Every structure is written in structure tokens, then in C-alpha cells.
């Protein structure tokens, strides 16, 4: 466990850089982490997914990709376009949640 400064706020993160406490998350932090993940700008579609994941997290863990597509109505293809290379994991990171658990 370690701390780091993101957008002027000190937060606790794990060894992979995921926030340990979803309560420490802010939208500014999301924008900053998204940039690090190769997403220069968060569009309304990105925010829809981020907010849905924050509302539907269990024990601080983000939902799986299949849960996200089923819950938001956003297709798998769109998810890979919005958050390329591992959408569920990227959303979790950006949304200040833990990595999703589960194989589907």
C-alpha cells in the first residue's frame, strides 16, 4: 500500500495504482487516470459507464464487462472502443474501484 498525489489530492493506492478507497475518488482524479490509461478525453459515454460502475460496485470492486454491457446497454464492441485494451479493468481504475472479480 502506498499513497500518491493525483490532481492535487493525496490518495491511497495499491501496487497496480488502483485506489483503495472509492470515497477518495473525484472526477478530477478520473480525468487524470484516464489520461494515464491512454484516454485523452472522457466523453459523456465514458462518464455513463464510470458512474454506472460506481453505483453498481460490490465491496469496492467494479462490475465485470458482461455486467456492464448488460446493465448499461452499451455493447461489448463499444466498450472496447471507449476503453481499449481491457475495458472493465480500465473503467475500474478510472472509477476509483477495485478490479472486477469473475470470469464472465
Amino acid at each position: 500500500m502506498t499513497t500518491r498525489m493525483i490532481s492535487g489530492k493525496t490518495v491511497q493506492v495499491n501496487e497496480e495504482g488502483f485506489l483503495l478507497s472509492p470515497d477518495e475518488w473525484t472526477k478530477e482524479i478520473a480525468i487524470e487516470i484516464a489520461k494515464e490509461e491512454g484516454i485523452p478525453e472522457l466523453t459523456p459515454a465514458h462518464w455513463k459507464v464510470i458512474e454506472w460502475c460506481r453505483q453498481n460496485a460490490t465491496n469496492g470492486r467494479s462490475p465485470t464487462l458482461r455486467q456492464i454491457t448488460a446493465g448499461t446497454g452499451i455493447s461489448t464492441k463499444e466498450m472496447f472502443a471507449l476503453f481499449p485494451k481491457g475495458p472493465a479493468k480500465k473503467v475500474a481504475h478510472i472509477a476509483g474501484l477495485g478490479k472486477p472479480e469473475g470470469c464472465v
Partner: protein
Amino acid sequence: MAEETRKMAFICSKGTLDMAYPALVMGWAALGNGIDVTIFFTFWGMDIIRKSRQDHLEIAPVGNTSMKMSMMGIHADNAGIPNAISVLPGMTALATKLMKDKMQALGVPPVSEYLQMLVDGGAKLYACKLSVDMMGLKKEDFVDGVIDIVTAADFIDMTEGAQIIFI
């Protein structure tokens, strides 16, 4: 940023229900980790991509020493299903239904849907030319996600640097 993307390639050679899922589950997990995924379907594994077959894959209890009576809801410790019973008509259908029910209860999608998820996630699917010729199949027999029918040499070329998993 110049970091090279990790690549994984799966070879699916089996067409039974239990052997269809390993590549689907691992391939999906790989895509979820930003890994480039290629799947080559050969021999009976082509049933996974055949429109007429993919949702009719089965699992036979006969000769399957891992399948126990307890899986059928009968508490009998390690007792297997006697082959003499397994050969009875309907036993393969029963075992298949039990496995499908268990997977559905866990939220695991059927083969066709799962495979489409992988295609939507960017997995590249190929059918084996020798197997296709041997079984008299055509590209139209396969689901849309199948990019092409290729030779073993083509597959070797396109998977340079990939971790290869044979199923």
C-alpha cells in the same frame, strides 16, 4: 508507450461442450487484460464455430472417469457413472443438460453468445484448411466472426511471438 502488446493464441481441437469453454474463458480473460487474442479451430474444434453445431455441443458420460454420480445429484462419494448405464439412450443428452444448467446458473453464456463477445472484443478467429477440406465445409458454414480459412503454416506465421495454448 513502445511496450509491445502481449499475444495469446489458442488452438481448439475438441468439439465437446466441456472442451469448448477453456478457450472462451481464457480468451475473454486475455482480452480483458489488453492481450491480443487469436483462435485457430481445427478438427472437431470447428464445431465451436459452425453455425449448425455451436449451440448443440454435448458431453458424453460414457468413458468419462471424472464424471461422478454425485454430479447427477446422487450422493455416492467417488462412485462413477457405470458405463453400462452411460450407454443408455438419453444419457449424453442428460449429462449435457446438467452441465448447461449449471453453467447458466453461474451466468456463463452459451457458446454462440460467448464466442460473439470474444469477436466483439477483437479476438481473431480462423478455421483450419485441412480440416475444412476433409469435412467438406465452406466458409458460409461458419459464424461471421471467422476471418478466414488458413493453413497451419499461415497460423504459425501469424502467431509469431504469441503464447500458444493447445486445447
